[in-house]
């Protein structure tokens, strides 16, 4: 107890970690629902529909199913590494999110000023890349330890692809670092405040549009998503590196993939889209009411849906959700809460937009061939990222004269 009293920052950090983990796990589950719904719409289908209202209980059902499946371990596998691999993949994917700042506001919890993020490291960006760079092990070791042909090929492909695209991923970001002159994620966002001609926000997407495009393409490849999902190309490799995995170990790889998607989108938001900064002028007062108002409108729409369209269990479930949305919306109007929710509101809006873009890409593009993937990474993306870096550093040098 004395130890805890001496280190209040530890207690606050642990509380923040628990809250973030809870929110993140829910977000991961509903990201799968979001993806299935959006892809279904793109392909003129309805998507998950029967489990709960609008299929909203589908992620829960999937989670339970994963838990109750038989957990097989191939007899010829390397037991220790086989179990270690999914743990590595998931824990590294989750660790990165500890570095993401979700808002500018400083709250005082237990007499300890805390920001809306777990840490605020002076070289946050480098740490994010450090952790993503060891994320390869989860996939590579899973492929090797299964002691089976398809996983091995998938693991090799995945590690080669991730190592290749990591180069252009990192290089595309250096332009932003040069413009801001810092590696701290908070300072990187503050460097983007202000406006050109009084109305265009000074976000890095505009001067660093080439960097942004390079970053996003490499990020899709880095997270092994369509059109770069060669490591798990089901037509050639069954399921790639996680062919032999079942039950919750498979679910851990699945969760790691979605957590990586969220991390990459958060980072793109911070580096290129101005993080938590609002695109609307700070002179206006009405944008302050926006988060609450949107939640209230959503809640009213859900109430209508509950009353008119839904039947049975779905009705009860949707009623709970709509009451929750209405209460949250009302809370957002409390004067002391209003400034706190602004940052996270814009941040989450941008992240959801990028995640939608991810899913949109998946629904639109076919898969690359492996040699095309490598050619594209090394012969196109890397030179473009390098050229962007050279031009940016030249411009920064001239402007600072």
């Amino acid at each position, binding site marked *: 107890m004395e130890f805890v009293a001496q280190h209040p920052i530890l207690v606050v950090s642990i509380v923040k970690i628990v809250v973030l983990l809870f929110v993140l796990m829910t977000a991961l589950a509903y990201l799968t629902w979001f993806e299935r719904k959006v892809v279904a719409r793109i392909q003129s289908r309805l998507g998950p529909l029967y489990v709960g209202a609008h299929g909203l209980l589908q992620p829960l059902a999937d989670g339970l199913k994963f838990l109750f499946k038989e957990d097989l371990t191939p007899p010829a596998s390397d037991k220790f590494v086989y179990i270690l691999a999914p743990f590595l993949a998931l824990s590294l994917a989750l660790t990165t999110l500890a570095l993401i700042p979700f808002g500018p506001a400083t709250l005082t919890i237990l007499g300890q000023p805390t920001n809306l993020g777990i840490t605020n490291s002076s070289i946050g960006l480098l740490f994010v890349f450090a952790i993503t760079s060891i994320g*390869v092990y989860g996939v590579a070791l899973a492929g090797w330890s299964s002691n089976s042909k398809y996983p091995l090929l998938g693991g090799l492909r995945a590690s080669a692809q991730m190592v290749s695209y990591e180069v252009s991923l990192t290089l595309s970001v250096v332009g932003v670092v040069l413009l801001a002159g810092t590696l701290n994620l908070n300072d990187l966002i503050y460097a983007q405040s202000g406006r050109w001609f009084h109305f265009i926000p000074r976000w890095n997407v505009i001067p660093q549009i080439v960097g942004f495009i390079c970053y996003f393409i490499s990020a899709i490849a880095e997270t092994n998503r369509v059109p770069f999902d060669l490591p798990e190309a089901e037509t050639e490799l069954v399921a790639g590196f996680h062919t032999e995995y079942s039950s919750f170990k498979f679910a851990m790889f699945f969760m790691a993939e979605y957590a990586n998607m969220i991390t990459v989108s958060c980072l793109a938001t911070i580096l290129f889209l101005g993080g938590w900064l609002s695109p609307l002028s700070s002179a206006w007062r009405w944008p302050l009411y926006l988060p609450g108002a949107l939640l209230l409108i959503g809640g009213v729409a859900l109430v209508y849906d509950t009353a008119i369209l839904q039947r049975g269990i779905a009705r009860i479930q949707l009623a709970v959700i709509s009451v929750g949305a209405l209460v949250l919306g009302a809370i957002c109007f409390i004067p002391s809460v209003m400034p706190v929710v602004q940052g996270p509101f814009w941040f989450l809006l941008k992240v959801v937009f990028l995640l939608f873009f991810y899913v949109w890409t998946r629904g639109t593009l076919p898969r690359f061939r492996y040699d095309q993937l490598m050619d594209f990474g090394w012969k196109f993306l890397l030179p473009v990222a390098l050229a962007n870096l050279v031009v940016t550093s030249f411009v920064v040098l001239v402007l600072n004269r």
Partner: protein
Amino acid sequence: MTLPLILFFACAAIAVIGALLVIFLREPIHSALALILVMVSLAVLYLLLGAEFIAAVQIIVYAGAIMVLFIIVIMLLNAGEEERTNLSKMARYAGLPLGIFLTLDLVYWLSHAALAAPAATGAVSTESADPTRDLAFLLFRSYLFPFEITSIVILIALLGALVLAKKDS
């Protein structure tokens, strides 16, 4: 016991145990994993010293790049368990005495350096707002020439590897 001290002893113990495991584990992949463990715990030790940049670079370069290469090579070669042999003549008559001598040498100098250490580090450590910036100034101002020479050496090594790899075709 303060928190940094507890962390230091934990990570130092992990680093030493990991280093021993690298030698004593028989499966090459397990040895490589133990080596990664050593690298990561060293990075934590750098963090405790306040050298955040070095810690991040340690993970990115060693754990994230070099060890990935090791792992891929081991996976591709599908190397089995290592075989144990008895000491060769060379090892018995030259290697063993030299090893023992060097260990004693190390112990001797370390036990003497430990007494002088606090004064030395006290002189070196300068409190700075941004250690990363200081490091950049050192690398690109004071030691620019050796830094560039290093990059040329690495480039030459890269070209050499390319030439060797292209030989057959």
